[in-house]
């Protein structure tokens, strides 16, 4: 299934775009998506460890399933304030 991942800050900088489309198997988890993101954008792979992911603007963990047609966001460590 095709899954769209929004990218921000350093992830957007390295990927050169604010969104990537990944091909994932059915019943893929966020952990699978994390690995696929690193394979598709090798320059990002070394930075993905501390990054979090959000589904529908809520944090999810690596065990969470990626629903079909979901929009996922990759959330690098935050630095607001």
């Amino acid at each position: 299934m095709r899954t769209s991942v929004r990218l921000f800050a350093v992830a957007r900088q390295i990927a050169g775009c604010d969104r990537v489309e990944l091909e994932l198997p059915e019943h893929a988890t966020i952990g699978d998506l994390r690995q696929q993101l690193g394979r598709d954008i090798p320059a990002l792979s070394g930075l993905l460890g501390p990054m979090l992911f959000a589904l529908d603007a809520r944090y999810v963990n690596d065990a969470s399933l990626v629903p079909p047609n979901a929009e996922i966001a990759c959330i690098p460590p935050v630095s607001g304030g």
Partner: protein
Amino acid sequence: MMIELTHNPIDVARVLASAESRSAGAVVLFLGTTREESEGRRTASLDYECYPEMAESELSRLEKEARQRWSLIECSVVHRLGHLEIGEVSVAIAVSSAHRQPAFEAGQWIIDRIKHVVPIWKRENWADGESQWVHPGLETPPTTAGE
């Protein structure tokens, strides 16, 4: 109550006024301001970006959670986005309560939580010409012009 993300300079008086109340015995105002030096390196300016839908919902969740933890009257949070010069206000938090302790504690808790969970990021534009996204715990590469 005021929860906002804005590309315009923060109207601090308006944030403060939003927390004032006749039943308040204390109003605490916290301002985060852009500092000229970070770990010995000089900053020329900063840029903030966010994941808009989520940053706003996370700020609202913090406001609700603060109200569960402390007895508050009003609670407002405004965070700036975009390009900021040194000395500008990047975040304003105003909290009121009948007595001072809840307002002080809640204000500190809110800014601490913002720095951990709200998807907002800053980029340091160093005085030497390099720019770099700030991600605590991550070594980030400098950006090239125009990014």
